[in-house]
């Protein structure tokens, strides 16, 4: 074999093969049969293939693939293909190529992807999430944020500016995102105004590009939309779907649903010329489809995010978390795919529903554009969270949790040094590597999913050593998406939003 580039083509592969080459099985593959064909997953390089019965059967018979066995076997290429019908031999060569590029077959002991080159971890964060307040004007039943306005102080404007200055000046990188969060950030308009202007100013003098964003429950949008437009802030609104669904959990302290106020806020935002993004939290898996329909038909959105509720804050006492709930979530979530395909058939438009589009992208690339689906996740390496009191945390989700506090913006050493030297950061990153989470270390989906959210493991299980509490959801949806993609290559179009962030393999893993 000769030198390979990362994008080895079939033609080059064929040219470099010689009959003396030694083909070796790679142990640890995952096999899953369905109607004759077999899905093979190579976990470490996140590669997968759907192989037709004839070719699969032949490779098993020759000992090159061995479902259920930990043993290796080797075979000279010359001994694999003697006396084969030329058409079948040509087909088989193509499959050898795919198996090789998928790290499922080693040639002369050499594997195509070198594990230490995949899965690089970002060094410094680019996303800084600032809690302008820890209080909120709503009391959603699944949220962790305190429910009466004024119960917690607002972030002082000076603290907000100091956070902004320090992240811009002290953290390496040229593109940064500053997200105003909370609580409800619109309860602190002064910090938004002063912080935004200041951010643009310091970014300009540091020669950096800054994007400003804000996530709101929408209730105060009527009042502040014009301002947000003027400040050029990207706005995300949390809305859980039609009134009947939204009002179940997104309520005021009195228990009254907030749907009407939120819709009014969205209308005002649009009138002001904002183009908000939408996020819904799903607690009842049966809501996936009605919520998606609402987003598209009522809000006219083509891109939105559906998150499931997590076990934290008030959800722990107010909502039910059956340990087997992941199965129903997976089943219902997968219907979104048919919804997207149907929508495209009717309108010619591809919807972009997160994380559906992201997960499809994960099947086609080794890049992991979203910080929550890497190993270790982005906590401390892609994101930092800042509490309203100026404390620094590994992630927005971890704000207020002492175990994940890195220090205080007033007293912390230069932030890049803080990150380099922080034991809290080092420990969290180490614990969340897939190889260190016992349940994930041998999981076929570990490099597609990445061991899950640090915060969710912490909230649900009480430590960082557990798999994601929705583990089964990921196991099911990644496998199903592979089968669906094998049957319907059109699904590739779902990755359009992520296209600019990823490098896609030069051969689809499905052999289409």
């Amino acid at each position, binding site marked *: 074999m*000769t030198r390979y580039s990362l994008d080895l083509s079939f033609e080059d592969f064929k040219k470099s093969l010689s009959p003396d080459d030694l083909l*070796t099985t790679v142990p640890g593959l995952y096999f899953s049969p369905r109607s004759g064909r077999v899905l*093979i997953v190579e976990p470490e390089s996140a590669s997968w293939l759907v192989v037709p019965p004839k070719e*699969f059967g032949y490779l098993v018979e020759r000992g090159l693939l061995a479902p259920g066995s930990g043993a290796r076997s080797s075979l000279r290429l010359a001994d694999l293909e003697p006396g084969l019908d030329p058409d079948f031999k040509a087909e088989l060569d193509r499959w050898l190529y795919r198996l090789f590029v998928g790290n499922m077959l080693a040639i002369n002991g050499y594997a195509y992807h070198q594990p230490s080159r995949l899965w690089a971890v970002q060094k410094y964060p680019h996303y800084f999430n600032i809690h302008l307040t820890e209080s909120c004007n709503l009391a959603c039943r699944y949220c962790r944020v305190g429910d009466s306005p004024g119960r917690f102080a607002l972030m002082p404007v000076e603290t907000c500016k100091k956070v902004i200055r320090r992240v811009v000046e002290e953290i390496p990188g040229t593109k940064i995102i500053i997200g105003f969060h909370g609580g409800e950030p619109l309860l602190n308009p002064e910090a938004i105004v002063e912080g935004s202007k200041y951010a643009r100013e310091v970014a300009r003098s540091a020669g950096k590009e800054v994007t400003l964003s804000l996530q709101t429950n929408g209730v105060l949008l009527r009042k502040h939309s014009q301002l947000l437009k003027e400040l050029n802030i990207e706005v995300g609104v949390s809305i859980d779907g039609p009134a009947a669904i939204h009002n179940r959990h997104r309520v005021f302290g009195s228990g009254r649903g907030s749907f009407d106020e939120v819709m009014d806020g969205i209308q005002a935002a649009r009138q002001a010329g904002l183009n908000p993004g939408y996020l819904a939290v799903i607690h009842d898996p049966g809501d996936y489809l009605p919520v998606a329909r609402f987003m598209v038909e009522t809000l006219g959105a083509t891109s939105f995010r559906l998150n499931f509720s997590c076990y934290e804050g008030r959800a722990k006492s107010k909502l039910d978390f059956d340990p087997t709930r992941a199965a129903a979530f997976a089943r219902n979530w997968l219907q979104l795919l048919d919804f997207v395909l149907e929508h495209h058939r009717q309108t010619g438009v591809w919807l972009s529903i997160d994380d559906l589009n992201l997960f499809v992208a994960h099947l086609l690339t080794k890049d992991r554009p979203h910080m929550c689906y890497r190993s270790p996740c982005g906590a401390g390496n892609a994101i930092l969270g800042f509490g309203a009191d100026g404390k620094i945390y590994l992630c927005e989700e971890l704000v207020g949790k002492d175990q994940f506090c890195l220090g205080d913006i007033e007293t912390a050493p230069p932030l890049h040094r803080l990150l380099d030297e922080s034991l809290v950061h080092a420990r969290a990153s180490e614990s969340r590597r897939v190889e260190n989470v016992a349940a994930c270390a041998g999981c076929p989906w570990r490099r597609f999913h990445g061991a899950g959210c640090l915060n969710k493991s912490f909230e649900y299980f009480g430590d960082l050593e*557990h798999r994601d509490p929705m583990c089964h959801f990921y196991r099911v949806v990644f496998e199903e998406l592979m089968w669906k993609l094998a049957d319907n290559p059109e699904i590739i179009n779902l990755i359009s939003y992520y296209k600019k962030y990823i490098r896609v393999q030069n051969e689809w893993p499905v052999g289409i």
Partner: protein
Amino acid sequence: MKIFARNQTLPLRPEPFVFRLEWKPGAEWAGSALEEIIAEAHFIQLEAVQPLDEEVVDLLRKLDDRPEKFSLRLLSRAEDFGAETIKKFIGPLSRLKKLDAVIFVISSRSDEPAQAEVSSLLSAAASAGLKPGILVELEPGASVSGLEQLIKNLRLSGAMEIALRPTSAANPHPNFGKNLANCLSHLKSEGIPVSLGECFPGLEPGLSALEPNCRRAFGSCYLDSQGLVRACRQSREILGDLSRQKLAEIWPGYLFAEDLCSRAALTVQSLKLEENEAVEANGMAEVENLSPTSLDSSLRPVPLFILKDKKWGAALIKGLDGLVLSPKGEKLARMIDGKNTLRSIRKKFGPRSAGLIYALFLRGLVRLEK
């Protein structure tokens, strides 16, 4: 039954080492031996021979909280103990971080309603994030027809691993070995990951489809609930008694694997044969051609364990693959630490070392990286 008594201490911790423990309330090993087990184990597998109860879950929790790094596996009979009873424990089991798999043992003779129960158990366990598996016990003289369908159904219901073992060492039918091998080959060629959990005594060990995944006596041992230690569940040789001895005094470890297990003996023999070939092969040219590796590539160790033996130096074992090394070869292998390069090793050990590195490389016992 022979009782072996060897005054050996446990040597290097082999990887992975599996302790198979038979559990029932008051199991003899649950006392001080447990500390020794924890110190040496990569896997601790509990096989419940009585219905699951709070006591076993408490024991698992206790093990789960230990700081040592090992994984747990739990085996429980699905039919005899009732799927509904087991389901009650799925919630608590799903909270254990070290629990690698929950295996439901079922009989090859189980009828349809029993199979349906096990199927529902499998999907409940999977939904809770557990990794469920199936161990099918083949009754003496069992027919293999029907077994195939049973296995396919269980895979469809979510069994992530599927293994077979005999109920006892009873005389199988003369054609049984061949039929079983055919059945396994057939299932594998359809992509069903099925293996033998143990040997089937009396069956031809040469049939490759009948290779057991038991880790042989190199990498596992069996402790029954009375505290008697054996190389495996099937072995009749009692190596010691935990009520009177310490585990370290009893378990001879893999140094004597050859004496304890015929398959381990076969492995050692074949590894020894290959040693000569490996060292003779002038593989350096080939290694150098394996771009993008180069002479400056560092050799990275992969997790494996080293068997030490005075007679023949050492053997490197990874999974079921390995290589026997001369004392000089062992020295070379120990230089593979991610820092030394092909060049530095060749300089130190001469050009013939290339053949050995090549042999290691082909078996995945070393990684080459720029």
